[in-house]
């Protein structure tokens, strides 16, 4: 299993004073004054011997994406359609139906809404008109928020400006509190040099090992 998220455990002894000092950030974080008073009310000693693991692995595969730490697919500079997104919005009007989808980077359709569904179709007059596009937008925004997707990438095309269906659809998405822009990838800060005393990746084959982040 590839560790998705690994972290360092900061000396918990500092917590006694209610201050969290971060090694790299060099600043103190706000703390709760209530701590000193509550520490007196000890309920049990069940967790006295419990020691948290200094390396915490978050197995949630979507965790890094939502913090924009997971690298996006780059693609080529002039490639069309672009690939640097986590979730992409797709809207399609065929001869009979209106369909909207949110596709993940790995080409999995995660959330979808279509007039092919009886749940959507039963309240509509037509499966192709402007109110169909609007309602598909409302339903898709609702489903996205229920699935924990708040931001999607929308690849704007010039012809979309003249399409009333598309405009109504996008307006409905925004009214449903779905953001049509994604966070930029946060690259790690660059520092030259290699730390030879810790696990490093010098002159080996580009094969991932599980203990790279563990110090």
């Amino acid at each position: 299993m590839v560790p998705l998220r690994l972290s360092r455990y900061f000396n918990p002894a500092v917590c006694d004073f209610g201050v969290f000092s971060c090694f790299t950030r060099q600043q103190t974080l706000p703390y709760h004054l209530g701590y000193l008073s509550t520490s007196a009310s000890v309920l049990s000693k069940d967790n006295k011997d419990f020691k948290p693991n200094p390396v915490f692995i978050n197995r949630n595969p979507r965790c890094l994406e939502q913090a924009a730490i997971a690298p996006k697919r780059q693609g080529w500079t002039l490639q069309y359609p672009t690939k640097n997104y986590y979730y992409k919005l797709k809207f399609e009007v065929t001869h009979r139906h209106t369909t909207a989808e949110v596709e993940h980077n790995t080409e999995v359709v995660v959330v979808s809404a279509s007039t092919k569904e009886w749940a959507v179709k039963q309240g509509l007059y037509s499966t192709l008109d402007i109110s169909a596009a609007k309602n598909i937008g409302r339903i898709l925004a609702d489903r996205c928020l229920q699935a924990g997707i708040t931001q999607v990438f929308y690849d704007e095309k010039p012809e979309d400006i003249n399409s009333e269906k598309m405009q109504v659809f996008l307006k409905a998405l925004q009214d449903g509190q779905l953001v049509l822009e994604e966070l930029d990838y946060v690259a790690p800060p660059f520092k030259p040099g290699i730390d030879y005393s810790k696990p490093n990746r010098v002159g080996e084959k580009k094969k991932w090992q599980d203990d790279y982040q563990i110090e």
Partner: protein
Amino acid sequence: MAHYAFKHLCKDLLTTRRTTQCLIPCYRLLYSSIRGKPHDIARSLKDRLAEIKERKEKDVVRNNIGFPLQNVGKHLDNKWLKERQKYEKNSRLKKLEVNLEEVRQSWVEEQMPNHSYVLAEHYGIYKDLFDHCFFYPKLFMDIEYDVDEEFVMPLYLGNRITPTEAQNPPHIKYNCDPNTWWTLVMSSPDGHLEKNDAECLHWMIGNISGSDVSTGEVLCDYLPPFPPRGTGLLRYVFVLYEQTGQIDYSSMKKTANCISLSERTFSTVDFYGRCQDKLTPAALSFFQAEWDPSVQKVFREILDMKEPVFEFIHPPNYHPNQTKYPHKQPFNLYLNRYRDVKDIQEEVLKEKLKNVSPFQPPSSGPEYPLAKLYGLSKKPSWQRLHNKHVALKRHQWKDL
């Protein structure tokens, strides 16, 4: 526009695979070292990803452990053609708005099993909880946390809930036959602080008769979620199992008001494996939660332990082996790349101490740091770049 047109041109070039049989030898001679294999012989990224996925899931057994998926497609076109007339006026005036709650109710009957399967797979629920075995949810639980007297926080398939909102046990509703027996388990596949492969049990109720959760036998009391600071979003999963009859859970029962985290260690696979003759998973919903100030309270008042704080560590960069005569590499950057970090830090510290005086207050630096470098263009470019990085406090000079 020109840019857009060019993109379209490139689309054809990049996506279509043309047969270049006659060109292969030519390619190999001229560009083999630069470009790699020709278009139709080299694998695309899609092929490579598929190959990796196949290799990973080679030994994985995927079984359907739930109820069989029922055919839910409805063919009610004639009914729709008759009834749709009443929406015509609003539709033509572009005012038609369907009721989202009604859509949701019919979605639960129609597409819910498929859609929630896709989302659970996407969030890795089946992988981490059931060891790649899967099930299609048969029914949907309405789970709601009471935020205050006025508002509730509903729970769906992966939406975000703050730990403040989830302080008290939620209200759970589902439709079922009153003579059936159910088991509810809430666990977190990411929330165990000691073992990264284990789960933390938050709530467990067995032998629920019908849909009334309060009648069930509480096997483990509710513990609010406690995602540690700096660990991102953790998943908290509710799974509802249907029982064939009453089950004797006396061996699995935790002590009342159990706080011990080692006692709350849980494995869904083990639990399900032990009772799989009598249990079938029937419903699934989950949420994601991130650290907020109420977690401090949980650690200090309920769990009575020091609060751990984590930070994300980026994986180290890859460097090829150092060569004596590197081709087309700027020598200063190339040599810096292979230096030991400790040497670089020493150099930075020495540079820093030049400007630090114990008798002077610390200076905030010049207002326009590049101004002093102006007019010194006769120096070589690598030195100018170095001076620029130092003046702007870039890269290793950040702490100067």
